[in-house]
């Protein structure tokens, strides 16, 4: 009797555990990346997994939500499913451009939130001709380049499409295979687009034609974030712990700074000083001309547990705002690295992985992992002015 009870109990426990595992994987899809945040005119645009939003800035009310549906095929048939959005939106020509996990680039009317057009690259066939490869999610934000929108899309390709007039036959003017996935928003400077790839390369392309200008392939680690341009130099972080300075015209390396761990995003550049973080939670201030390390702050020594600094810090009025993976937002004095707030802003279970925004006197931070999608804080004392959605869900 006892052994039967025990064996049945253990069997039931195994099934329950397996079911729980399944539920975790097949239930409500969790975020696969942090949210994208872009300022508009008295609004901010937020791509937040299942929906994108335009949020009114004075009070945090919702101007419109946008949801993208995508055809989803399975063994049991096909149907429409909710797509996800994480990439940083781009604003221009009265449209907001979003990349989606379903591999789409969508253009939405900035005022009404109605979808104007969408583009999904044709997936290549597999070895069975009528079965196509599934498009990979788009994590890189679109970038505007004059009358074009540059879209680092699925299948290792970068596309250039007309930014306006997209209602009819929205097709790319050119597309280039960059050989690896792109997670960082491409950077456009005059007539060149710079693309960092997970395949350890920084690539410069001609905006008009897509023609390759140069490839910087020195890094020994992935380049997951966007490059940053200042005064003829590109700065890009790498998983090989280096921040690289690359000549924007030639692609030649100028110097590399060895940090303590992976550098995900490019630096904030202010008057020749570079501010950036690594995934161990260190924040660096570096003189771009001399590569002198002006100061380093080890955030884990300020708060336990520490957390990765993934995003580019925000600089405003002599203060650096730095978010961490452990749900802590710091205000650091840009000159000294010392804390400016009596207490950092903390949200339990949140992960601050998106670069904050300063807009209309509000410090905007978009966490993942908590019900609130956006906090508006006072930059002087970190007091919450509003949050979206409100705790009551509105």
């Amino acid at each position, binding site marked *: 009797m006892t052994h039967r009870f025990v064996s049945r109990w253990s069997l039931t426990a195994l099934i329950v555990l397996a079911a729980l595992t399944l539920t975790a994987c097949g239930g409500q899809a969790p975020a696969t990346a942090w949210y994208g945040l872009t300022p508009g005119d008295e609004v901010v645009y937020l791509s937040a997994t299942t929906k994108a939003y335009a949020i009114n800035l004075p009070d945090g009310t919702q101007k419109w939500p946008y949801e993208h549906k995508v055809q989803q095929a399975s063994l049991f048939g096909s149907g429409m499913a909710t797509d996800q959005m994480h990439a940083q939106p781009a604003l221009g020509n009265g449209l907001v451009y979003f990349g989606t996990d379903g591999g789409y680039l969508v253009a939405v009317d900035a005022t009404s939130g109605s979808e104007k057009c969408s583009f999904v690259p044709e997936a290549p066939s597999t070895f069975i001709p009528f079965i196509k490869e599934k498009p990979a999610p788009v994590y890189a934000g679109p970038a505007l380049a004059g009358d074009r929108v540059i879209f680092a899309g699925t299948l290792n390709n970068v596309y250039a499409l007309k930014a306006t007039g997209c209602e009819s036959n929205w097709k790319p003017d050119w597309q280039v295979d960059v050989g690896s996935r792109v997670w960082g928003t491409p950077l456009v400077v005059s007539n060149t687009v710079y693309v960092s790839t997970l395949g350890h390369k920084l690539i410069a392309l001609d905006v008009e034609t897509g023609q390759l200008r140069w490839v910087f392939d020195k890094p020994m680690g992935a380049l997951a974030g966007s490059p940053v341009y200042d005064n003829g130099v590109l700065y890009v972080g790498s998983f090989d712990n280096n921040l690289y300075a690359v000549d924007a015209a030639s692609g030649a390396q100028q110097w590399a700074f060895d940090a303590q761990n992976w550098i995900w995003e490019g630096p904030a550049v202010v008057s020749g000083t570079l501010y950036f973080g690594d995934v161990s939670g260190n924040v660096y201030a570096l003189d771009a001309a001399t590569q002198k390390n002006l100061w380093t702050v080890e955030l884990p020594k300020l708060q336990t547990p520490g957390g*990765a600094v993934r995003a580019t810090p925000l600089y405003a009025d002599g203060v650096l705002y730095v978010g961490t993976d452990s749900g802590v937002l710091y205000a650091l004095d840009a000159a000294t690295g010392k804390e400016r707030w009596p207490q950092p802003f903390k949200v339990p279970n949140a992960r601050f992985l998106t670069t904050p925004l300063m807009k209309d006197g509000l410090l905007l931070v978009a966490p993942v992992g908590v019900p609130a999608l956006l906090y508006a804080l006072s930059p002087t004392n970190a007091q919450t002015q509003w949050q979206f959605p409100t705790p009551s869900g509105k």
Partner: protein
Amino acid sequence: MWDTLVIGPFTNALLLIYGLLGHNFAIAILVFTVLIRAITYPLTVQQQKSAKAMQVLQPKVQELQKKYAKDKEALNRETMKLYQEAGVNPLSGCLPLLLQFPIFIGLYQVIMLVMAVNPLQMLNLAKHLQGPLSQLVSSLLNTSLASFVPLNDRFLWLNLGQADPFYILPIVVVVSTYWQQKMMTPPSADAQSQAMNRQMAIMMPLMFGYFVMISPSGLGLYWLISNLIGIVQYWMVGRPQTATAAATPAAAPKAIAPAKKKKSAVKD
């Protein structure tokens, strides 16, 4: 604690194999799964032997159930006495199973972690590639583990970070899970147990098949390899003896003796 004891070491071991074996993640999964199954082999054998011994005692237990149908206390006492005389511990089959389960959960988590198909997973991976163990693996390989990222996720027709578009892998996993389930479930004389076994033999493969269908195929590959190893391990322990013993209740009392012998052999 879980991260320190399981996820960190597993992650570094998997990447070490990946680095040593030509940067092929499918082969790394294969070798790593074989290693883990080899390490847990003594537990598996103990569990299977215990299950067999219990099966051999089933007819006796049923006799006791009939005899003491109205006296639960006596039934428990006599059942435990029977187990003691046969040198069988009813819990000895469950403990190895419970010990193995966290290992396989850890392995599943590590494969998902190392594939890092999305940015949040990549960020989590970054946390596990720092520390002395990663430095040791890096020095053994003479290269930074970060240089492996992103991993080569192509194998045959599969993108290991995506679900199999042809559903070949889920189908093979369903078949192998069913096969394994059928082999490892000892025949039962009890009608209720038989019904439960039948239900399990269908539900479990379908459940895992669905799971593999919606998951990255790297995980499906792991399940397939794990199933195949389980089947091979079972044959190594030896199924025919169990099947014969269970199918012929009259042979049960004689079969208790070999169980005792095996136990003493293990002690030696």
